[in-house]
């Protein structure tokens, strides 16, 4: 049983279908990036998983159970959500003590998690004076109180500076390497998903693709870009040998799904001059943009 399992999840808000028959799993010990443009249904999915939103159809389960059925949820799942607020006049430590209490988490754990997110110095300060980044860390501290095996984070990099993003990325990596499960949503792929093991990409509430990052990148294959004064000839040679190639400019040919060796041999056989030849490996970001292209950016 996967730690997180979403099956046929649908959520309609009046006439709007926010999530549409969505299914995916998140495996233990991985960081899974939950990606999609703004308004794709990421937040609705995560909030349904956490029992905050009632699904119209389908299920979103944690360790095979509905969140609402978890006895002491903080011990299983920690969540960092957008738009979850703080009582502004309360100190960081008291905020956490209030979260710890109903789940029977001892007060000393509060200082541990403040330390873990590097907020110990601000423990006695009122949250109203906190920067966005500090609030995100405090939210993360709250998620860690019960030392849960599963972390669910919705756009956690919002408001973090580059150093904060780097810190969070390493933090999540350490949790996952220790056997934890991390599901993290983002509309900015570059920030977090670069360190993800797997991705789930959605658009307009529907699943676009899911799988390990390695699997996603492979089928697209590499391209070889060749700069040559005899671009026309090279284009003809390559296409006549059955390769997919195109003239990208008067002195440049791009060959798809080939190895440099194949291009080099074709060039030598035709006796052509080559100034430069380079491999272009598609990255996850290209794939993400390609897969989600044309999505309206709502929200």
């Amino acid at each position: 049983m996967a730690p997180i399992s979403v099956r046929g999840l649908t959520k309609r808000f009046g006439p709007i279908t926010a999530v549409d028959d969505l299914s995916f799993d998140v495996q233990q010990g991985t960081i899974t990036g939950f990606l999609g443009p703004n308004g794709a249904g990421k937040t609705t999915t995560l909030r349904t998983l956490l029992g905050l939103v009632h699904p119209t159809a389908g299920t979103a389960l944690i360790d095979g159970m509905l969140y609402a059925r978890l006895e002491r949820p903080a011990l299983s799942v920690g969540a960092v959500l957008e738009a979850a607020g703080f009582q502004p006049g309360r100190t960081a430590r008291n905020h956490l003590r209030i979260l710890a209490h109903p789940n029977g988490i001892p007060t000393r754990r509060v200082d541990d998690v403040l330390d873990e997110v590097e907020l110990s110095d601000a423990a006695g300060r009122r949250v109203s004076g906190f920067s966005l980044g500090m609030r995100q860390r405090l939210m993360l501290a709250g998620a860690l109180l019960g030392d849960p095996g599963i972390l669910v984070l919705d756009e956690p990099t919002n408001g973090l500076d580059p150093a904060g993003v780097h810190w969070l990325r390493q933090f999540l990596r350490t949790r996952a390497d220790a056997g934890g499960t991390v599901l993290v949503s983002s509309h900015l792929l570059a920030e977090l998903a670069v360190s993800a093991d797997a991705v789930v990409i959605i658009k307009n509430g529907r699943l676009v693709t899911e799988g390990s990052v390695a699997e996603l990148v492979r089928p697209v294959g590499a391209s070889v870009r060749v700069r040559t004064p005899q671009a026309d000839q090279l284009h003809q040679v390559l296409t006549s040998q059955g390769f997919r190639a195109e003239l990208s400019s008067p002195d440049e040919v791009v060959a798809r799904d080939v190895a440099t060796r194949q291009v080099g041999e074709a060039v030598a056989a035709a006796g052509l001059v080559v100034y430069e030849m380079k491999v272009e490996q598609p990255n996850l970001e290209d794939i993400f943009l390609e897969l989600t292209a044309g999505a309206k950016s709502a929200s």
Partner: protein
Amino acid sequence: MIALVRTELLKLYWTRATWGFLAAATLISVVRVELVLGSLGKVGSPPPGSRQLTLDLLGASSVGVLVIAMLGVVIVTREFHHATWTSTLLGTPDRRRVLTAKFVTAALVGVIGAALLFVVAAGLGLASGKVQLYLDARQLQLIAGGLLATAWWTWLGAAIGTVVRSQTIALLIPPLWMLVVETLIPAYGLDRILPWTPGGLAGAISGAKFAGVAPVWAAVLVMLGYGLVLSALGVRRAMRSDVC
């Protein structure tokens, strides 16, 4: 449930607004008590040291109850206002339990708040040297009824907050009801329903004497009914709503 009520009490303890509401309630009661003491010797006011004066004095503190009832509203609406409802539900997904804990907490706060106001009123009276505490059946009923009625008001306040959700609107309901609607009822010739309004019921259990006053047992039953119906409506709304 005990852990949840304790959590709610901690939340109140660590919220500055709580102390603001209690201070405002005390202040209003002090002003009213001083007015009663200040009118001594004038026509129509009870003689110093009389039982009636003690009753007037303890009754005067009840205006502050309105502010305590508003604190009951805030126990719930604050969560929506500051969007802490999300983290509360993440910790305790059972919304019915969370709200029940809030209603219980509100009632506790009502008892504590009313006790505070009685102590302040009695203290000022005794300090003036013109008031004596008799603690006879009549006065004990006033005190017991006052504690119970305030607990009920704060519970209603919390239930109203659950139904209405908007902090501003919900906060306006108790004062509008008590200060406007209930004072207008006689003017519209609806005296017959007066004993069954929240104010009339609170009066009934505190031993107030007026035309058509309900018997204590009936008043308590109707109060329970009001509280349960409002609470059920609030819980139903909370159970159905999506927390986005």
